[in-house]
């Protein structure tokens, strides 16, 4: 019984939140890793791209809500998502046209592109602040819980409750769908394969007649979709605040590097590694240990290894460990 309680508590406080968060990070890291693989630069503006996409989705959600349209038990933001993706894709394509294309044509180094993306970050950040401001926004509607702690307790008779918020379930389902679709696209379609070929060997791709501009456009659209979906899911799960999205840059990059920059599988694995370490190290284990250890050994402290304020330190520590032990990441990616 105690073991069951421990398991439920663990699931409730660690496994479920970390899985949802990991899926969000994985989607973010996928966007970063695609940029690295195909466009060959580290895009510092990715966090702000996520913020922009989420902002558009929120605006569209409000628009739908004012029209009285809703998705029933699901959050309205899910219907608004295509709008967010489309506008973000348009923004990224416009940015590429006005900014990045020039440097790509001149074969600028990845270092220059990174710096250029700092400028883009300022602009996007400015736009988001201008339009929606710096305050926190909540935009989740629909059912709050898939399984509520009370129902669970009543159903099972356990002391510990298991709550699964709908945003967590939606995150998981959406992320899984997106990942499957992305891998199907990359591995099965002509366009997806041409993208991988371009990432692998740009000159040979040109010789094979692959249109570089088309590959770049497809990549930006995918990045826009991934960033908007990741941002919206994160916003539904927690809340939307532009600055938080900037701070997501660190765990997202850590995830992408841990998995191996440029490797999509790595980005996903990295996302979950970072999320589970972050949640695991900042969770107070007192409860779980209390159930599993014999009465005399139960701890009296919180057994929290790190305060939640230091969760970004976790990404950083893992990043440092990986850089020290296996700098190429767990999966081999591209090299710039």
């Amino acid at each position, binding site marked *: 019984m105690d073991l069951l309680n421990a398991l439920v508590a663990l699931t409730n406080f660690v496994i479920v939140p970390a899985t949802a968060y990991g899926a969000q990070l994985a989607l973010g890291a996928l966007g970063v890793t695609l940029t690295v693989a195909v466009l060959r630069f580290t895009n510092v503006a990715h966090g702000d791209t996520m913020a922009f996409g989420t902002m558009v989705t929120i605006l569209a959600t409000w628009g739908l809500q004012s029209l009285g349209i809703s998705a029933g038990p699901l959050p309205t933001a899910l219907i608004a998502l295509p709008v967010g993706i489309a506008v973000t894709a348009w923004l990224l394509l416009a940015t590429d046209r006005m900014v990045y294309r020039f440097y790509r044509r001149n074969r600028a180094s990845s270092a220059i592109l*990174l710096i250029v993306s700092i400028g883009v970050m*300022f602009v996007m950040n*400015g736009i988001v602040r*201008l339009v929606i401001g710096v305050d926190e926004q909540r935009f989740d509607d629909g059912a709050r819980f898939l399984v509520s702690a009370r129902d669970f307790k009543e159903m099972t008779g356990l002391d510990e409750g298991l709550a699964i918020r709908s945003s967590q379930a939606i995150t998981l389902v959406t992320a899984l769908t997106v990942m499957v679709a992305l891998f199907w696209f990359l591995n099965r379609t002509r366009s997806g394969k041409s993208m991988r070929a371009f990432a692998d060997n740009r000159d040979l791709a040109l010789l094979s007649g692959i249109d570089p501009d088309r590959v770049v456009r497809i990549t930006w659209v995918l990045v826009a979709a991934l960033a908007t979906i990741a941002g919206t899911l994160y916003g539904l799960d927690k809340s939307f605040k532009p600055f938080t999205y*900037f701070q997501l840059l660190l765990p997202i990059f850590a995830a992408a590097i841990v998995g191996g920059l440029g490797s999509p599988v790595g980005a996903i694995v990295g996302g979950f590694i970072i999320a589970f370490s972050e949640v695991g190290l900042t969770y107070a284990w007192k409860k779980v240990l209390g159930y599993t250890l014999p009465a005399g050994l139960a701890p009296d402290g919180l057994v929290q290894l790190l305060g939640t304020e230091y969760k970004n330190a976790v990404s950083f520590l893992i*990043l440092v460990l990986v*850089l020290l032990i296996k700098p190429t990441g767990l999966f081999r990616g591209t090299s*710039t």
Partner: protein
Amino acid sequence: MTARTIAMFLLVLLLILLTGFLQSWNTALYILNMGLVSAIMALGLNAQWGFAGLFNVGVMGFVALGGLAAVLVSEPPVPEAWAAGGPRLLLALGTGLATIALVVAVHKRIGKRWLRIATTVILACLGFALYRMLFDPARDAIEAVDPATTGFLGGLGLPVLIAWPVGGLFAAGAAWIIGKTALGLRSDYLAIATLGISEIIISILRNEDWLARGVKNVVGIPRPVPYEIDLQQDPGFAGTAAGLGLDPVTASTLYVKLLYAGLFAIVLVALVVLSQLALNAPWGRMMRAIRDNETAAAAMGKDVTRRHLQVFILGSAVCGLAGAMMTTLDGQLTPGTYQPLRFTFLVWVMVIVGGSGNTLGGVLGGFLVFFLWVQVEPLGQALMQVLTLPLPDGALKGHLLESAAQMRLLTMGVVMLLVLRFAPRGLLPER
């Protein structure tokens, strides 16, 4: 110095004077002082990026460490707090460091892979547990000492000027750790690593109240210059002010700011001279050779990573120095206000706009971009006032007027992108 350089710096002077005549001399001197500090930050980053091609995206962290130094050096110690848990806390920190040293040493000694991993993990866990056992009660005791006004250990009570080089040392220490890990790998790894360390430094400053009161801020840091009140009460000063046709209050604030400007200018000039000397010495030529062709330099037997580490530490130390100066100027350490866009990426804009690789370029960028940073807000406000004139009063107009304050970041981005595109080597290109 070319005519262009001189013209550009005259422009800066003109802009500051214009601010003085059109707005207020207090604002003008604020821009001058922060311009000097920004110029020093830009100098540090320019050493890293401009001379060595290293990505430091963690300027904010190094600047904040300088600020911490100002507190730890100049604040008076809090004896009650020391009595409550000082030694125990030091012991805890010592245990932490010893654990790390032990883990590293053991990691190096043991050859067998699984044995090595097992022992390091066990040692690290034991050390961490011991550290927390020592640390937590000490921290709680210290933070319980009169939390409204102190609740921290205080500093050494030394003159604040000593904090400036100490700030540089703090930053250098952090840079050494980062550099050891991330240099010699892909260039963008350093970017992410510095981004990470700066976030962590800020988290520590915000949350470790025993160290520098966290978000409760440390205010009233002792000054290297006289206080306005004392000046105003000094009959000699009041007399001189009256002779200049100024009232004593205005005169005292201006005088204090000018004193700061003098101190800062001395530091800036010294740093510029030093970096020019270094750049023209064989060391500087080698640095540039490495930046321009790393592979060739490595082939000629240069230890590229070591050189990179040197310049990375030096540049970060300069940022730390600037951070200590800034905190001294503010008279307070407010960890809540450190934002990467302001303290990391704005410095990047400065270096890019000024001219990466050119010492004076970075300095110029520091002044110009800071000027812009301050002035965009009133300008944007005025512009928005004019633009929204035809609109009826209401939510939209209100929102637009309010959001004008956010024009800053957009402007910085646009300026940076325009410079990168049309003057990629900056306003003062490297020769």
